[in-house]
């Protein structure tokens, strides 16, 4: 009973921990207090029911009743008996609350304020989960199943936060679940009674269990595999590392039909992965030269890039007042467009042209007028088809020059906030020096990102040592649209002008029907600068050659074609100022620039075919070496053995070999040793040869027995080889066991004869293997590996035994047993 009560408490606590993800939804913590009350009531009622030995269905009814009481007390309608007991009016009130909560869900965006309907819904949900968890964990003793309702709570923020879900609440919930599992299993083990070791000693304390060690090892290996396997699989590049890393960019997510996500984060460092092309949307418009489709904005600047804010706004079904004022220098034209989003683009955002004037869209879509983002908290973009009207504005540089600096109290002034990076401020000061108007300042910054100044397009940035990613980019001058957009926005902000980063599509490929098809390769990022009296004006600083479907404008012309087209006055005046600032660098990096322009301006990552070829050949060479190593080592061994042998083993021949007679005895001894060593070498070589040719070798056989077996079984048809192998056996026998080891005949020819007989007597496969992968060498390697691992195991065992002595748990167990 006690254990049941414990488990019930753990179940209640685990439910509350599992509710932690809801903290990401609510603005305040009222929900937690109320949920705790409800869960506590449920747990208490369940404990009481179990105390009264109620059957399972009785416990369930009691818990539901407890939950009803808690809800009644928390959300009274005023018509309760004694303020606690529900009446039909209460139930009606609950119904009303539930209906109202649906309205609230569609009305509010995260984070949600404390409204009664929302709180009611939350407490009801968590209370129900508490009932289920208690039922499964305590009633049915299946705590693993209790994970399902707990997971249901977690799915709520997952559904709302489409892009990223806060991980910490999930970890808290998972910890609660694990606690529940552990508590249940400890309870199960306790039911067996006390644990004993083989020698009858109780193990209340601690006892090293080999099973536990195995479990730990399995867990470690499992975690390692779970982490490493996705990294190794190329298709999973959009996984863990990308989430942890500073953003991989647009292509990685949008390229996948399965997720269809675009990471709205304009990073100052990153890598673009565009291995495949996927159609994302089809656009039809009566605009003859459409500009960029737009679906997102990032205006929160951190040191690593721009992040988006959650959009807010009213429902979409109405006419929008244009954000761009009607004034001189702005050409406005109203167009109509139809967008069909494919299944591959799956975001809570819809791409539209700026400025949205009117849209026909069913469903719960909203429009954030300040961000100019069409969004939904419930729906997704995939498969949507919608029509809208928009006003396309084009600005003349002359008109833009009239824009004044933003007044200090302007609500958009926070768009000029930047992290303090002195190098950037210095660059901005240098670029904007002498520029009088806001537009000229922006143009100076815009012009800075030109090929002339050494900037180039690449699918990945280069690392740097400055410590600030913005400085790294401005120094390396290599990157893709994200870096250009973010860097320009940063610089413009540093100049005191509001700027942000916009996400969207370039124009895409025009089909025969006049529609444009945009793919993941059209995903693009650019900068928007706010001019007082003009609104947000787009600038695309990314080198146009890197962006398929790039469109330039009068106020932000393509810097590469500026000279040829001889841009008119206003921009020409800004041009020299912009290029002057980079002249020094320009000349320094002229060579580099030529190299860069020589490269194909495609979207593929620049690879070095030479180096990859080198790596392949090195790998192949290593493989070849590994494969031929046994054969090489074997032949080296044979050569060494052959070299070590005396040409003649006649005793007299060596004894008289020019040695002073006074040393005769010593010479004989040395000669004896020599003969012994020769015989051993010959025998070793014979054994190796036998192993190579797959002949049986018996560790319990004497040399004589081995030789006679071979002569009898293997060389029965070859008397010469038989006598040769007998000679070798006799030599080895003498060398091992006799005082005088001289066999009286040379061994080398005998060895050759035996080898020849073995070669002749074996099939081609055996011959080939003996040559290419000698089994004797492989056996030797295997033996070496086995020896090494045995040494390792024994030394680890010693280490373990030595450290176990100092384990505090063991000391504790010792103390208890005394």
């Amino acid at each position, binding site marked *: 009973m006690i254990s049941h009560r414990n488990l019930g408490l753990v179940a209640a606590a685990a439910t509350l921990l599992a509710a932690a993800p809801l903290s990401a939804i609510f603005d305040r913590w009222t929900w937690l207090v109320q949920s705790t009350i409800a869960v506590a009531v449920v747990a208490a009622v369940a404990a009481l029911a179990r105390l009264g030995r109620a059957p399972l269905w009785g416990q369930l009814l009691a818990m539901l009743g407890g939950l009803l009481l808690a809800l009644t007390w928390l959300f009274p309608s005023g018509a309760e008996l004694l303020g606690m007991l529900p009446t039909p009016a209460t139930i009606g009130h609950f119904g009303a609350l539930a209906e109202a909560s649906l309205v609230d869900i569609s009305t509010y965006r995260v984070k949600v304020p404390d409204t009664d309907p929302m709180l009611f819904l939350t407490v009801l949900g968590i209370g129900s989960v508490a009932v289920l968890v208690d039922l499964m964990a305590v009633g049915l003793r299946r705590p693993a199943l209790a994970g399902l309702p707990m997971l249901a709570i977690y799915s709520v923020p997952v559904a709302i936060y489409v892009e990223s879900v806060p991980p910490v609440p999930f970890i808290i919930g998972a910890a609660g679940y694990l606690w529940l599992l552990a508590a249940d299993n400890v309870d199960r083990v306790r039911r067996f009674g006390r644990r004993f070791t083989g020698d009858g000693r109780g193990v209340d304390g601690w006892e090293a269990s080999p099973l536990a060690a195995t479990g730990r090892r399995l867990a470690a290996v499992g975690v390692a595999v779970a982490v490493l396997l996705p990294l190794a699989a190329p298709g999973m590049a959009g996984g863990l590392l990308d989430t942890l890393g500073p953003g991989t960019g647009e292509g990685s997510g949008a390229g996948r039909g399965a997720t269809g996500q675009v990471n709205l984060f304009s990073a100052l460092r990153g890598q673009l992965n565009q291995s495949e092309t996927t159609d994302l949307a089809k656009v039809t418009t009566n605009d003859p030269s459409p500009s960029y489709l737009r679906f997102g904005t990032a205006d929160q600047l951190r040191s690593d890039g721009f992040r988006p804010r959650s959009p807010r706004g009213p429902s979409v079904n109405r006419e929008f007042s244009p954000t761009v004022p009607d004034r001189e220098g702005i050409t406005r034209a109203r167009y109509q467009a139809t967008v069909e989003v494919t299944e591959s683009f799956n975001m809570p955002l819809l791409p539209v042209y700026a400025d949205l004037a009117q849209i026909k869209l069913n469903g719960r879509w909203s429009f954030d007028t300040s961000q100019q983002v069409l969004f939904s908290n419930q729906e997704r973009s995939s498969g949507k088809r919608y029509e809208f009207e928009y006003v396309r504005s084009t600005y003349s540089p002359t008109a833009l020059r009239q824009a004044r600096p933003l007044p200090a109290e302007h609500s958009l002034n926070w768009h000029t906030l930047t992290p303090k990076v002195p190098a950037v401020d210095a660059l901005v000061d240098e670029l904007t020096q002498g520029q009088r108007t806001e537009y000229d300042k922006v143009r100076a910054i815009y012009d800075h990102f030109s090929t002339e100044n050494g900037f180039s397009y690449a699918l990945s940035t280069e690392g740097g040592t400055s410590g600030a990613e913005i400085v790294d980019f401005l120094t390396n001058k290599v990157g893709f649209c994200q870096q250009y957009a973010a860097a320009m926005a940063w610089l413009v902000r540093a100049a005191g002008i509001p700027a942000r980063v916009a996400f969207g599509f370039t124009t895409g490929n025009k089909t025969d029907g006049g529609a444009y098809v945009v793919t993941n390769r059209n995903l693009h990022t650019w900068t928007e600068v706010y001019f007082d009296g003009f609104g947000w004006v787009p600038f695309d600083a990314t080198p146009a050659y890197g962006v398929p479907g790039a469109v330039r404008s009068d106020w932000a012309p393509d810097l590469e074609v500026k000279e040829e087209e001889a841009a008119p006055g206003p921009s020409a005046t800004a041009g020299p100022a912009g290029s002057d600032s980079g002249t020094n660098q320009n000349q320094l990096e002229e060579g580099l620039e030529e190299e860069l322009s020589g490269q194909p301006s495609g979207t593929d990552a620049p690879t070095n075919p030479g180096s990859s070829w080198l790596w392949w050949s090195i790998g192949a060479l290593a493989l070849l070496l590994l494969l031929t190593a046994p054969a090489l080592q074997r032949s080296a061994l044979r050569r060494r053995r052959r070299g070590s042998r005396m040409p003649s083993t006649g005793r007299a021949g060596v004894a008289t070999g020019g040695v002073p007679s006074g040393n005769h005895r010593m010479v004989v001894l040395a000669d004896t040793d020599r003969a012994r060593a020769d015989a051993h070498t010959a025998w*070793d070589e014979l054994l190796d040869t036998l192993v190579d040719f797959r002949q049986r070798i018996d*560790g319990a056989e004497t040399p004589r027995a081995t030789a006679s077996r071979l002569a009898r079984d293997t060389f029965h048809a070859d008397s010469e080889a038989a006598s040769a192998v007998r000679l070798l056996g006799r030599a080895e026998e003498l060398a091992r066991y006799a005082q005088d080891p001289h066999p009286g005949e040379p061994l080398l020819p005998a060895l050759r004869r035996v080898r020849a007989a073995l070669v002749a007597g074996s099939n081609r496969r055996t011959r080939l293997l003996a040559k290419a992968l000698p089994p004797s060498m492989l056996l030797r390697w295997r033996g070496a590996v086995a020896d090494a691992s045995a040494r390792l195991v024994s030394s680890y065992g010693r280490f373990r035994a030595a450290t176990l002595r100092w384990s505090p748990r063991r000391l504790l167990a010792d103390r208890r047993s005394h």
Partner: protein
Amino acid sequence: MTQQTRDEAGGLLPHDEFRAAGDAIVANIEQVIEGKTATVQLALAVLLAEGHLLIEDVPGVGKTKLAKALARSIDCSVRRIQFTPDLLPSDVTGVSVYNQETHDFEFRPGAVFANLVVGDEINRASPKTQSALLECMEERQVTVDGITYPLQTPFMVVATQNPIEMEGTYPLPEAQRDRFTARIAMGYPDSGAELAMLDGHGASDPLESLRPVSDASTVSRLITHVRQIHVADVVKQYAVDLVTATREAPDLRLGASPRATLQLLRTARAVAALEGRDYVLPDDLQVLAVPVLAHRIIPTADAQMARRTTDTIVSDLVHRLPLPQERRRTSYDTRPAANSSRAPYEPRRA
């Protein structure tokens, strides 16, 4: 220097002479026992190794004949004792008899006072009488009434016993068995040898006409020669390994004694010398393991139930035990795993 062996007297006993003497004895015995060269050689080797021989086999295969032929081939004193249940220890060792003339006890030597003692059907005597042989076999002396009498040199007991018919017999005690260097079985002759036997034994008993080809002093010289045979350290190690294996074998309740190790090596020297070698091979030990070790060890009840004799257990050990290597070198064993030397003493389940 290596082809000759220095004998005790300082003179040289040429190798060939040793071999000739040994071969002559073997050939002489083979006139009586046809087709059993290995057995005969083993019997001679036991003699040269200063050991005692136990011949165990069914009746009628020539146990006693072998013992008598061996005795007759050597010109030395031979006594034969027919062991019967009423035989007394004093019949074996000798007894002090009161002499009326001298008014004193005088010692009458028993049957063991000879170079060769043939004990027929040794298990038919009572353990009391069997035990009379203990001292003389091991210490080559007899103590009667507190006086110790040394026995002659060479001294060898050749005993026979019948393992099948156990009615009215007294199995040899363990201590007694351990004193026999080797136990050999005669085995039936093959058909050719049996035909030749019919021809040879038809008219007269060839044992009657057998003449000695050697004498006690020659045998003593041969024994001295055997003691000089070289035994390499690895071979000694192998002998120890073999005996240790019997002690550790799970099939055996009692392994072989250190005395067995000594006698194994001594007999191996004799075998090597008889083959004309001046060094002992592990092969010699392998050949001798069953005759020298098998009769000393006692199998477990399980092994007995599984009908595993000590002979098969010892020969299994010999086949599994790896040879000791005199130096660190790669040793191969490509036998199948079931027969691997990793667990050489694993009992085989029947």
